[in-house]
């Protein structure tokens, strides 16, 4: 470009880069219970919409707190055969399964040296109260390996008091590495299929290497298995917030 003056054109500094701080933005998004997210399939979305209406209806009447796997919960259910007609069980949540109204969570505890796991349905009308006693996330989303761990890691006091916690605090992640009982275990937890980070494997090196033989490194690049739920989650979160505020 030739300017009219003959002098070089005025120096235009490059535009300043706009830094979008995604970390602070992510923290604002609240927790969405995993049973609201519809699974991939050929079912009519009307079915999930109607199920969600029922779930919201139940949540309006009965408070279901937000909890992850690893939290310690106390659940009171109505029991026709108990003396007080109600039954209280305290335990650590090891698994959350099911979608829609049939969503379940499994609580584990060891009472008088006997390990007990109870699978409760979130939306069952027999549940009278769910209290979160301790908020704590673990390194994995499935703590089934606690069955093969030493019993001290699954014992929780039945008369535990709820641990006080400030709202708007991040849920702490407990990076506890659990010690296991001697093998055989119910499942071969050292295999990469389970991707467990919360166990302190005391197995010899050659066994850990041999377990890597079953690794499937191509799985993370498989595009057919990708299920991007971000947009669906946003829609459902909006719907939930609207309905619960009514």
């Amino acid at each position, binding site marked *: 470009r030739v300017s009219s003056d003959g002098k070089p054109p005025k120096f235009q500094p490059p535009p300043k880069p706009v830094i979008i701080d995604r970390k602070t933005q992510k923290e604002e998004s609240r927790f969405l219970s995993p049973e609201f997210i519809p699974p991939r399939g050929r079912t009519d979305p*009307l079915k999930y919409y109607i199920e969600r209406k029922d779930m919201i209806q139940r949540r309006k009447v009965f408070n279901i707190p937000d909890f992850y796997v690893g939290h310690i919960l106390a659940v009171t259910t*109505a029991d026709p055969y108990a003396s007080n007609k109600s039954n209280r069980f305290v335990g650590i949540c090891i698994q959350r399964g099911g979608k829609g109204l049939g969503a379940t969570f499994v609580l584990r505890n060891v009472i008088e040296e006997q390990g007990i796991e109870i699978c409760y*349905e979130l939306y069952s009308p027999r549940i009278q109260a769910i209290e979160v006693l301790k908020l704590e996330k673990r390194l994995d989303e499935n703590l089934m390996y606690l069955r093969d761990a030493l019993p001290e890691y699954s014992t929780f006091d039945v008369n535990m008091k709820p641990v006080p916690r400030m709202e708007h605090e991040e849920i702490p992640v407990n990076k506890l590495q659990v010690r296991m009982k001697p093998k055989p275990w119910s499942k071969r937890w050292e295999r990469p299929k389970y991707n467990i980070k919360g166990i302190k494997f005391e197995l010899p090196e050659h066994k850990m290497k041999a377990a890597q033989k079953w690794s499937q490194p191509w799985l993370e690049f498989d595009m057919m298995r990708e299920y991007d739920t971000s947009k669906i989650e946003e829609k459902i979160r909006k719907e939930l917030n609207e309905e619960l505020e009514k």
Partner: protein
Amino acid sequence: MMPIWTKSGEKKPVTLLKVQDCHVLRYVSKEESGGKTAKLLVGGKNVSPFSKPESAHEIFKEAGVPRKQKVTTFNVTDDAIIKPGTPLYAAHFRPGQFVDVTAKTIGKGFQGVMKRWGFHGQPASHGQTKTHRRPGAISTNKAAKVYRGKKMPGKMGNIYRTSFGLKVWRINTKHDIIYVNGSVPGHTNCLVKVRDSKLPTYKDCNKNPPFPTFFADGDEELPEDLFDEEIFQFTDPSVTFA
């Protein structure tokens, strides 16, 4: 399929069936059809008219209705005849009724005798030579022939089957959905025929159903959801055993 809870806290599995654009297409009188009762032809889901020739559209043109994917017959008594062209809704059924559901089962293709008929096959080891899932003997020596209808490998599924005596727990009038107890033959989103139950135990169970059918332009105004008496509704507080 979805769970539903009763007032005593028991869980029942329930199938959702949607009534999608059902219209009565034609009335066939007793003498014309040659059966014991008159028949009503009813059509199901709407479908594009361009994939079939004009001659196939006659029934739909007479009734004044777009082309339907499925046409079924219902045997009907003389006092339940409906004019062709009336739409049918889910409110035709009421909670507490018992219903038979017919549909084509999921097709499994050509299947062997163990999956198709439940034969036990042969042991996996102890000297079996190339024989683990075969039928074994197909007839006796004296018969000197194989009987007709002998269970053998073949195409399995994709045939009409009925589940009898299913209870209707709930009806959604806004979206025309019927909640039926238990499971129903067929894959998800397949076409299904719902009929009043013919089992003798449920002969007198329908108390004041909408007869001959539920008319949307009538005076009745139904609430959005109709529940059976025993169902736990989510607006109530949790169940307690006193």
